[in-house]
């Protein structure tokens, strides 16, 4: 199979997957027997039966699920209109956009730190193979895998807030909300320390393992001798070749990891009350705000699918072996 066919197939698969997501998205929510209006209203004494009926009509819930609601919704989605959140009474796309960048910031920082530390630790571990450093690094990555994300968050939250006086949640202190950004950077940083740290620990292990095996591979190959013969130091050789080798898997891992990162974001944002997409998803779930939940799921799923496709493309472009396989 040549590269073009490979990419076309991947592209087709992504389209099919998006279609599957859309179908799941619609079907799941509309088979529910409950009354979403009542879920939004709760036991609110101010909302009379008439107002509830008005809301029902406003949400289009008075029409039959199929075909009316199905095609209505599908048509709206096709136009990029995700509807109006029932609990927030705002367009879903606005709500999603306002939270998106918070999540991107958190995930981005976590990934950057994880990659930097992972590369360094992996390098060390591979270089000092079978020493205490190596065993320690491997044990760490193993335990990091076995720890539930949210529990790690809870521990760091408890320790960070009681021992270091770090904030217990949110992105900025409420008193700083709305102030110019440059004046509140220290405050935002304080809020980001714990959630970023949690994410870093979680994703550090994988990068470290990749870097480590890349180092080991380089160490076992012949050209290291050649390079040494050329007068490069042991250290220079490692740095140059091993890093280059590890680049491809690391880059693709970033994209492939997005799906897992999304999961991590849901837990971490819930634990740290961090105002991003993950927490939004969780609140929409508890409030049974279906348009919001559908919108959030669509956004999360589609971005992961696209990231996966990007990883495939990248792989095809960077890795000559794809051509042959």
């Amino acid at each position, binding site marked *: 199979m040549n590269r073009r066919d490979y990419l076309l197939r991947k592209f087709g698969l992504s389209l099919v997957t998006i279609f599957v997501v859309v179908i799941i998205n619609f079907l799941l929510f509309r088979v529910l027997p409950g009354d979403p209006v*009542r*879920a939004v209203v709760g036991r609110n004494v101010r909302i009379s039966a008439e107002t509830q009926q*008005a809301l029902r009509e406003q949400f289009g819930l008075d029409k039959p699920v199929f075909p009316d609601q199905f095609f209505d919704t599908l048509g709206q989605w096709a136009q990029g209109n995700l509807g109006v959140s029932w609990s927030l009474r705002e367009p879903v796309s606005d709500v999603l956009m306002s939270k998106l960048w918070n999540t991107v910031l958190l995930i981005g920082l976590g990934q950057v730190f994880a990659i930097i530390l992972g590369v*360094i630790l992996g390098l060390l571990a591979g270089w000092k193979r079978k020493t205490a450093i190596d065993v320690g690094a491997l044990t760490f990555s193993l335990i990091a895998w076995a720890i539930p994300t949210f529990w790690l968050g809870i521990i760091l939250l408890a320790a960070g807030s009681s021992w270091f006086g770090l904030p217990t949640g949110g992105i900025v202190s*409420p008193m*700083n909300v709305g102030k110019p950004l440059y004046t509140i950077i220290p405050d935002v940083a304080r809020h980001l*320390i714990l959630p970023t740290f949690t994410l870093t620990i979680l994703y550090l292990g994988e990068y470290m393992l990749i870097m480590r095996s890349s180092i080991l591979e380089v160490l076992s190959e012949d050209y290291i001798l050649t390079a040494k013969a050329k007068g490069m130091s042991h250290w220079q050789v490692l740095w140059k070749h091993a890093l280059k080798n590890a680049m491809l898997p690391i880059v693709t891992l970033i994209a492939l990891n997005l799906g897992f990162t999304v999961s991590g974001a849901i837990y971490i944002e819930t634990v740290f009350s961090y105002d991003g997409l993950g927490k939004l998803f969780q609140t929409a779930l508890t409030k049974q705000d279906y348009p919001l939940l559908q919108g959030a799921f669509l956004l999360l799923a589609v971005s992961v699918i696209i990231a996966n496709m990007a990883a495939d493309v990248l792989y095809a472009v960077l890795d000559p072996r794809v051509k042959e396989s």
Partner: protein
Amino acid sequence: MKQKLLYVLVLAAILLSACGGGGGGEGTTLRFGWIGKPDTLNPAYAFLTESYTVFDLVYSTMVTEAADGSYMGMLAKDWSVSNDGLTWTYHLKDGIKWHNGEAFTADQMAWAINAIMKDPDGWAASANYTGGFAEVTAPDDKTVVIVTEYPIANMDYRVSFLYAVYPPDFKGFTTSEDLQNFTNFAAIGTGPFKINTFDKDTGVLLLGAFADYMDGAPKIDGIVFQTFDNTDAMIQALKVGDIDVVNEVPASAFETVKGYEGVTATAINGRYFNELIINSADPNLDPAPTGNPALADPAVRLAIAHSINKQDIVEVVAQGLGTPGDSIVPPTLGGGFWHSPNIQEIPFDIAEANRVLDEAGYALGSDGVRAKDDLRLEFRLQFPSDSAVYPRIADMMAGWFNQAGMKATPEAVDPDALVAATTPAGDYDLVLWGWGPDPDPDFILSVMTTEQFVEGGWSDSGYHNPDYDQMYLDQQQIVDKAERQKVIWTMQEMVFNDRPYIVLYYEKMLQAYRSDRFTGFIESPLGIESAQSLLNVTAVK
């Protein structure tokens, strides 16, 4: 390599050096922390409690509820009702001003009430309060007259929700929907505080003291409302002094907050209660309710009542921050005026429960579950899944029921599925749930009426008692308080004795404030954030 490490260390240092932010106190502005935020400041279409907290501070009404549960004049200096109970006359105070300096007149108040009556769809949140109003006029600058179609018993309560909105702000809407979508974030009112800024995204709301307030300016400069994402963060902020008031402390954290230095934590009897709902739906309904028919037996209900240790629930689940309940009308309504004193609590007594069931012919089976003919005392015990309190109560209850030979299987159900199961399907046996506050007993009494057991209605028990329904209608038109009280007492006793609900306990309202910075809060069921309380608050020098 070393450089890279150094780089990371520097980055970490920058992050850590950032520790130490946070703001200090500014002047005498009260910093108020809460979890929610108003979704709109438009009284026509506001449904969240937070919105009403703000309305209370920014808007005024002719009459308002006092800390003791009675009603007192606010815009009105006095008011009276005609002998036939149909004409209400309100005399307004002198020198009332809008926040923009204009004088407030009686015809503006009349306009605001008429607006609701003309467009009940647009004013969905207020329309209930003007039901039965025939005509509202302002015969002169200082007098408002409301004529009603029939005598309205809870007129004071209703008028206390009719806000004097600034007519120019509300005049321009042609359709109900336009009015509903109006956010009114720069509301102009006549209340003790005026809105400086409101940012809906962040929820930050700045109120400034209104110097020309009719009863004298507040003694603080203003209030900042700050929305927190979780209670832990909010309590932490109170502890370190980043905020001054927390209006909702979770029961599980109350003891800890009480121990903070410079913080006063208050537990006030509130209006919220938790109840056990027993399926009381009419078996002849179509489709037929599916509750265990044994629940129709008064002996079984009595045994259930005997098998609930309300005191223990309060101590364990509510951490002692509540009072065992009996009536659906909490003792805090009207300062205790409406709560029936005649209810004889059923004591927790498992032996008695067993005796009652023995006597009624339910014999203990080999599996520990009592049965009579094909009636087995085996029940579903459902509760909404969005609360951490109910599974705890359900657990305790199942244990007690078990000792009395009744088997209850606790099950968490999503709230809207639970609504679908209860109203009007009647597809449940026992349900744990709670009701929120409303200062007049009318609403909670309506929950027990037959006509509310319909799609979109408020009855979940399915209680159907024609006598009760009639009394409910009667009490709505008895203007004489003492006479209305008698009817309402009887209604509570009916509910207590028939047990569609077993009220478990009344929750206390848990609030806290920095007593080293502010003093003078009035502790009442209205909350320390009520206008009356905040008018009384002064900074500690």
